[in-house]
């Protein structure tokens, strides 16, 4: 029984510790996100107003012609919401894994990762 109690106690303590560490690691400075990011020919631009756009110059698309979206960064969850011109929305949710002044990395629920560098 004691062994069982130790086991539960250990699990509880471990859980607390583990939970605490996960929270601190999943928070990122939103200010780092503002700006233009690039991955190959793919660009993302985040503005402080919560809007942004993305374009791929390989498709002969300019920044002005980029797809607009709204974004929120809550903890590590980065949500892009695209609004179609004729209506409907397309949400995309990612989990940020790295956000620094020059580097951005995130992944989606299907394990696909994305890595960007800041365009200075």
């Amino acid at each position: 029984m004691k062994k069982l109690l130790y086991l539960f106690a250990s699990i509880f303590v471990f859980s607390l510790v583990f939970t605490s560490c996960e929270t601190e690691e999943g928070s990122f400075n939103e200010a780092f996100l503002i700006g233009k990011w690039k991955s190959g020919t793919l660009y993302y631009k985040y503005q402080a107003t919560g809007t942004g756009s993305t374009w791929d110059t390989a498709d002969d698309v300019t920044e002005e012609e980029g797809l607009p979206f709204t974004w929120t960064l809550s903890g590590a969850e980065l949500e892009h919401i695209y609004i179609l011109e004729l209506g409907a929305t397309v949400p995309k949710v990612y989990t940020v894994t790295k956000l620094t002044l020059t580097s951005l990395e995130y992944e989606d629920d299907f394990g696909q990762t994305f890595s960007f560098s800041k365009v200075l």
Partner: protein
Amino acid sequence: MKKILKPILITIFSLLFLLIATVSFALWFVFTPERISPVIRNQADKLLTSQTEIGRVELTFFSTFPNFGLRVDSILLINPFENAQSDTLLSIGRFTGVVDMAALIRRNEIMLSGFKLENGNINAFFNADGISNLDIMVNDTLDQVTEQKEATDLFVDLGKVELKNVNITYVDDLLEMKGALKNVDARITGTIKNNDVSSSLNLTKSTVSFEYGGEKYLDNAFVIIDFPAQVNLGNQKINFQDALLSINGMDIALSGFVEMDTMSGDIITDLDYNFQSWPINGLLAMVPPSYQSYLVGIEVDGLLSSMGKIAGIYNDSVMPLMDLQLLFDQGTFTYAEYPIPLKDMSADVKIYTDLTNDSLSYVTIHSFKTQTPKSSFATRGDVKNLFNDMKISLDSDADLVLDEFNMLIPDSLKVIMKGRLNGKVQSDFAMSHIDAMAIEKMKLSGNLLARNMDVTYDSIWLKTHNTRLNFNLPFKGVNNPLANFAKSEVTTEYLEAGKPGDYYALLQNAQFLLETSDARDTTRIPDLFCSFSLESLLAETDSMFVSVLNPKGNLTLAPVAGRPLEPQIHLVYNSDELMAGMAGDSVSVKRLATNTNIINDQSQTDIFLQWLARGFIDMEEGVITTTALNLPIQIPAIKMDFEPERLDIHDGRMIIDKSDFELSGYIKNLLSYARGDSILKGELQFNSKITDVMQLMDLTSGIGYEDSTEVADNKMPADETEISSPEEKTVASDTTYSDPYMVPKGIDIVLNTNVKSASLGVDTATNIIGALRINDGILLLDDINFATEAARMNITAMYRTPRKNHLFLGLDYHMYDIEIERLLQMIPDIDTLMPMLRSFRGKGEFHLAIQTNLDSTYNIKQSTLLGASSITGQNLVLMDGETFSEIAKTLRFSKRAENVVDSLSAEFTIFRKEIDIYPFLIVMDRYKAIVAGRHNFDLTFNYHISVVDSPLPVKLGLDIKGDLDDWTVRPVMPKYAQFYRPASRRAVENRQLELRRLIRETLINRPDTDDQIPE
């Protein structure tokens, strides 16, 4: 009786015998030449100062019966003068004088009551001082005679003076005149009673020569004179009746008087004259040599007759009034420089003039006619104001064979004329009008008829037949009161003209009426009215042609009020079949009618804006063929009103291949659009039984576009230079791309469609009802309902073309009762977007909102692809047996279970290459499962299935990963609990409806003054 007569006759003959015997005795024994000759010579010496030689003188009776005569065999008077033509004044072969026997017997004086000169010469001479060799009389003698005559009433009987075969010469150095009469046979009689002289000159045979100032005016002209005259010396008046003067056979009869007013010095005349049939060549023969040069090359003949009256005063300032009638007949004329001979010339002209006053003077041409070998010309009229500004009024007829006149045209002009031109011309003008080309002051009218006319100018030719031209100038405008300058009417059976290899025109049975104001007034546009009616018109150039049957109408031209140099035009036109073509494009119309007002505004720079038109067009059965289109456009009918800002189409029907359109409605802001002030707006009802959408798009593609390079350049971000990756593409010029459909710019047109059947490629839609809007580069299909073989559909679509290589397409599909298999056939791209649909067969309901940008070849730019979709279905059949079998095996389906999906309700989103399938419930056999996952455009997938209700005792999940060739199914813990309902369910549709309404409001509820739609 006989008894009485016999003694009388015996007495008479006895007396005659006695008389003859007495006279014979006197002549032969008393008045012998030896006695008379000295007497005569003594008398001559007393009376004459010149050297005199008088031959044998004898008295005659029988040759001068019933008077005694004095015959001198020869008389010679010599009076030498320097420069005289001869020293001899008089040389007479025989002189016979009638002797006054009473004077001879009573006073022993030989007085002559008449004389006759035969076979002699008389040479009269006046030197430069006016002194004559005729002055040979002794002055005392003359004075005595004069004194005697003045003392008593004067009566002188000149008796009879005869000249026979006498030559007379006359030289006057003072007056520079020379004259000569040869072979003169003349008789002169006369009496003088106080101041009255009665005389008669009868010159029956003579030739005359006359020279004045060194100019020879007559040279041996044959002269006949019969000149009876009554002269009053006191009044210095000569009166004559029926006088006859003939020179070279040209007779002139004279009657009347000539009087010298001794007080004023005026000469008063009242003469009637008359001559008949003077040959013109005879007159010309008398033209002095120095003037003959003017006649070189001229041959003219004819007969000139005249009669008239010359009456009135002649002095330095006044001329007598002449009333002359000239008749010319049988005239011919040839001139070396004018190679067309004239013949049958005739004229009847009246001249009434005092040679001074225009108010009195005029010429009336009763007729003037002439002919060439093939042509004829005639005129009549009058000429007034002869001496200052001659006013001419003529009424002329001409019948001209044009071939004759080619020789008048210089070869350098390369003009050849054939055919016939005849007609009448009335003219009334002054010479000053001609000098100043003041046509507006002239009166010209006439009608001309051209038949078989063929004119060639260099390589340009014109042929016409039965072409009539009527013209009037000036003319009081009937159809346009201000078009009062000239009127002309042209009718032609046919008229054709052309230049080989350049152009050709043909008019048949044409009529034109033209009324115009003075078009030479360069300060204003002329007022003009023109009506026309043709049976046919054909015009061709090397690059275009036009052919019209029965064009009729009228055209009115006038200056715009307040803008005299800018025209306004009113055109009423209708015609039957019209065909026109240029550079491979052609138009044909079976009937065309229009009533158009066009106003010019030269303050505009754009030619389109300079001509503003309003009116209507009514056209039937038109066909337009253009190289820009593969198929002709048939136009069964168009009826529309138009004005600068607006087009109202009452009936506009078109057929292109199998497509037909019926348009009605309006288009406005035409002028503003052209000026660039506004976009073109309109709303049209678009009805069609069959519409080929692709053809319609081809028709309207690219209107209002320029190369977007500049636009793109302007839109370049400031930090564009930062994009320097080698794999990046820059925006290229539009010309480097193919030609996608470019939505017209600058227009806002709404087509309220009602299309029974529309084909789009291989697809066909029926009963399409809804609005299609084209707004400044945006094409919007707004809530269009239609049916296809696969489904009933509702679609809202936006197609935007900011530049050729960056097109935008947004679709909002709602399909009901859709056969999924047919849907994939109808819209193959659906299979790309949702490849899992290939696994199902059956009917469902499909909603799709998707947008993407396309390149110029309509390839999707995947980086711009966004979409959301919802699909529901009942009793769908799962088609993929291998997949089904694997799943069924893993989930332990009943072996009796069919691959039928009882119900399906799912949502998808599309983002670039990713298709995310939101969790949805699928019911199959005894199972209910939640399915979610991702499908990629590279055909890899990652699905999870949570079985939420099954006969199995445990909850089970499956992860399915891989691609269609290599995938795995792995049992896992289920992610979703029973009755899971994804939060996003139906949200897509709700947002679509909400945002679509937002789009509509931003498109439709915009102010007229700002019709630009933000891109």
